[in-house]
């Protein structure tokens, strides 16, 4: 093999390794983005101890958010779109969890601003994540939908991947439940993508 050919072979080999490495890295990104956060069971009925004011005349949609989680911006964007589509047919609550041990003002930021900007949404600050614990929310972006009668109709995330906006099947399910008035139990769970909320763990009786 001539020296020139050897050089060309080395360059070609190097480029092949580079391309495979880059494509492989894209694969790792895909894995990271599609790995959901922890998820617990939400109570089947509206927790009696909850301080969140339930709207008795329509379904209640509650999204739990970590105020500093970058991935939750996508959930907020999706919730804003959902709010437009719901058009007031459901009461939207955004619970911003302020974990214990965080300084004052920790709850401020883009997430709260976006939540406040959603028309008709009630924004609730949840010190220590007490309300989040009552609803079994462990991951930021976790959303629950209760019917007007207080029955759980949906739980999970409303984005289809970590930090990715866009209309997904979870939004379709929520819209279907709100419009039909009843939920399809078999399709009422979706994975949640976001940061850990840091909510307290409580027992069913404490709910």
């Amino acid at each position: 093999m001539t020296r020139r050919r050897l050089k060309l072979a080395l360059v070609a080999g190097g480029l092949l390794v580079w391309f495979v490495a880059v494509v492989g890295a894209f694969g790792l990104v895909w894995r990271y983005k599609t790995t959901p956060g922890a998820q617990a069971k939400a109570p089947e009925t509206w927790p009696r101890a909850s301080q969140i004011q339930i709207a008795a005349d329509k379904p209640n949609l509650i999204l739990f958010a970590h105020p500093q989680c970058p991935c939750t911006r996508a959930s907020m964007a999706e919730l804003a779109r959902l709010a437009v589509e719901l058009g007031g047919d459901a009461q939207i609550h955004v619970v911003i969890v302020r974990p214990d041990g965080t300084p004052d003002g920790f709850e401020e930021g883009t997430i709260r601003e976006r939540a406040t900007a959603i028309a008709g949404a009630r924004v609730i600050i949840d010190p220590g994540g007490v309300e989040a614990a009552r609803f079994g929310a462990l991951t930021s972006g976790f959303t629950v939908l209760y019917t007007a009668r207080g029955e759980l109709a949906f739980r999970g995330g409303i984005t289809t991947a970590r930090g990715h906006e866009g209309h997904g099947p979870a939004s379709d399910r929520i819209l279907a439940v709100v419009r039909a008035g009843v939920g399809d139990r078999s399709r009422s769970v979706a994975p949640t993508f976001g940061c850990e909320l840091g909510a307290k763990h409580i027992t069913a009786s404490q709910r």
Partner: protein
Amino acid sequence: MTGSEAVVVRMKSKLPPAPLASNEDLHREAEVLYHARVTANARGVDRLFAYVMLAQWLLAIVFAIWFSPYTWAGKDRAIHMHIFLAVFLGGAISSAPILLAIFRPGWVVTRYTIAVAQMLWSALLIHLTGGRVETHFHVFGSLAFLAFYRDWKVLVPATVVVAADHLIRQLLWPESVYGVSSPEWWRFLEHAGWVVFEDFFLVIACVRTSAEMRDAARQHVAIELHERAAAARIQTSILPRDLAVPGLDASARMQTADTVGGDFYDVMPVEGGCWIAIGDVAGHGVRAGLTMLQAQSALGALVRHSPQATPSELWRGLNRAYIANIRDRLQQDEHMTLSLVRYYRDGRCKVVGAHEEIVIWRERTQQCELVPIRGTWIGMSNVSAKALELASEEQTFQLEKDDLLVLYTDGIIEAKDATGRMIGIERLSDAVRDNHAKSVLEIRDSIFALAGAHTLDDASVMVFRYAGPAAEAVAA
């Protein structure tokens, strides 16, 4: 053969015809120039893309730090995955094209790698922004930038990467590219279709600009060949037609290179001998040819005005005339190397100037002798009178019967043979030694044979054989 005929040999100097630009020459040289320009353009665009790759990498890091610095677990935070992605994946994507642009600019593989990397950047950015439609503009901007290469083939790998990325992600994870979870099955075709739409116009632009570059190269070469022919005509038309010198058997030849240099030689008979000059004007083309013409005219005028002047006086006069004309009036900075030899019929030679060593074949010792010329160039301004006096100091040597005097320009000794080896003064001397018994014309041609058919620069050789004092007596 009479005695006088044996002494005064009239030898016509060989005048090469002015180079004619055939269509084949024009086409060949135009293609060479076109490809040189294509490569130069590609090297420039490679460098630009190296900066773009670096900028994209740094911007990705800045955006990652700005928008998603940390991931949270309650009150605890950790560096967000996006920062690692920007640093490592972004760095990996940019590394290969940057390295190739630095170490292998102008290579075809460099621009193809850049095209692929640029589309991988589009894929990463679209991915990191959650398939935002706005980020897809990066693809279209990148394709337009790739068209700077004026090589439509570069758009092919770029388009393939975009289409493959959209197809694969549509199948596996459509949100990451379209921002929706259930796009129509043909959505990737729609995106790829718009890319092809842009490609269509960019390909036309590339083909047209390539054709324009080819035309421009052809026009440039046509002008250059014309100019070169004119310069060659100037250069060769003033060479002496007749080398008739009492007591000297003479032969001289000049071979002009593809790019006209500035060689010249002259033989001017005067009473009791002659003036011999050989020199080389720095530079190439018409300008060098005109400079040489002026120098030759000035030298001719000086010799005709003062045929019995000393070489030193003539050299200083020529230097003054050269500085006045070339430096002061034309504001040009070319200088000229020149050996000025005053030959006397008794075999004495006085030489002044700065040029290649003179080769003298000594018939009596059967050896070559080298006479270095230690003066300075013609056209050196801002030189003190003392320095000029030293520069124009004469050297004297004596020719004996059948000695050979060989003068030449650097185009001969700096020429390379078929093996790439420079001819050099030693091989020239060997050629003189090996052929000393032959005619001056054969000796001259044997020296040219060393340099081969083509020299990079003009090449000139003058060979003189001294007939000796006896012949001088006969002539007298």
